[in-house]
């Protein structure tokens, strides 16, 4: 049975097995959080791996008793954003993020229409400012509660609430203007 308090306490003392348990527990959310930002599986894998290594090195600064997931996601998000900036600079692209598409590499899904809608939603979100994108990813795709989002981005809960509200309003504007298929789905 996984015991997060025990695992984080052990990891802070340098117990590799305890930290390994944390990796197994949170590798999926770390990888997905990275993937939502960097949009490429190999890069997301590298970011998630590096985030865990850095988390281990900073475990002594982790406040025991606090949830590990948002603390980890903060590291993941920072690394992923830096990776995107670095990549854009290398490619000379600064204005637009990569376009999210369902690819052959994606695992089979029972409802391809729903999957396409999710991809369209991600493309709509990609048109928003960075701060908006992050909170929307965390809230709707990774399904974090607001208090964990607050911890993950290092802002007060009230700021998260207002940022989510603002981001949702902007997302709605983008969807209504450019994604009629989503508007139909949402209104339907």
């Amino acid at each position, binding site marked *: 049975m996984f015991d997060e308090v025990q695992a984080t306490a052990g990891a802070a003392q340098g117990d590799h097995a305890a930290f390994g348990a944390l990796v197994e527990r949170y590798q999926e959310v770390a990888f997905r959080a990275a993937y939502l930002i960097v949009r490429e599986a190999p890069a997301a*894998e*590298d970011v998630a791996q590096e985030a865990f290594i850095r988390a281990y090195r900073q475990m002594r600064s982790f406040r025991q008793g606090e949830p590990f997931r948002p603390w980890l996601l903060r590291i993941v998000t920072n*690394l992923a954003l*830096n990776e995107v900036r670095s990549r854009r600079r290398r490619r000379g692209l600064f204005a637009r993020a990569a376009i999210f598409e369902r690819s052959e590499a994606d695992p089979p*899904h029972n409802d391809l229409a729903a999957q396409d809608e999710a*991809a369209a*939603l991600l493309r709509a979100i990609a048109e928003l400012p960075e701060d908006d994108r992050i909170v929307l990813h965390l809230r709707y795709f990774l399904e974090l509660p607001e208090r964990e989002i607050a911890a993950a981005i*290092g802002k007060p809960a009230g700021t998260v609430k207002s940022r989510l509200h603002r981001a*949702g309003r902007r997302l709605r504007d983008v969807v209504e203007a450019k994604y009629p298929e989503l508007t139909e789905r949402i209104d339907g």
Partner: protein
Amino acid sequence: MDELMFEEAVQRIAAAAAYPSTPQLRARVLDAIAARPPAAPSRTRQLASSSMLRFAIVASVIVGIAVALSVPSSRSAIADFFGVEGSRIEILPTAAPGVTPTPFPTPAGIETYATPSSLDGVQRDLGFTAALPQVEAGPPAVYIADYFAGAAVLRYDAFDLWEVPLAGGTIGKGIPADTVFAKAVGGATKIEDLTIKAHPATWISGGAHIVRFIDANGHEVAASVRTVGRNTLIWRTEAFFYRIETDLPEAEAIRIANSLP
């Protein structure tokens, strides 16, 4: 449709998102941790020999990225400053006549590359006592750089002070000494040689520059890349590398640097 219904619809659509298979990271992470044990550098720790110093010095690379680098004296200034074994100069192709250079990315907020900490946290996690400059401002906000676990960043209203310990063949916590700082500067950027308490220093002003780390294999550490939109004073002692990023004039930056114990 009201806000709640919109939110529920977004949540429903997002739940159908497909992701690539999650990689199994446990073994790789633990192997990496075992292979790169963190060092515990100390402010009082001295480099044992000049050869260690040679390996511990942070070198600098000037990279002109799609920008005509028309400051050869700047190149030599940086080369001299970091003129140690292992230094290298990289000049990427410059922009052709009439081609508008690609602009640098907008400088990012500190939260995107550093984690809030405290002076006690720096002592505990990085193993050294952060040196405080003598300034009238209140206590600084303290951060630890995410991409470079050995670096402390003290944020004051008017400047950021980076402190990176150099010790025992590594920079910071276990970063190989032959990792180098790289700075990409635009043609408008001025670079000037200085000394801070008899230590070599460089003042970079007049334009944004990009800071990044190049690892021992010559690869860019992706997470380290960021734009610095302010003037920068960099200098090193036997045991530390320092950087001040500020909009203050050169004389004030030098005064702050000299005020460090």
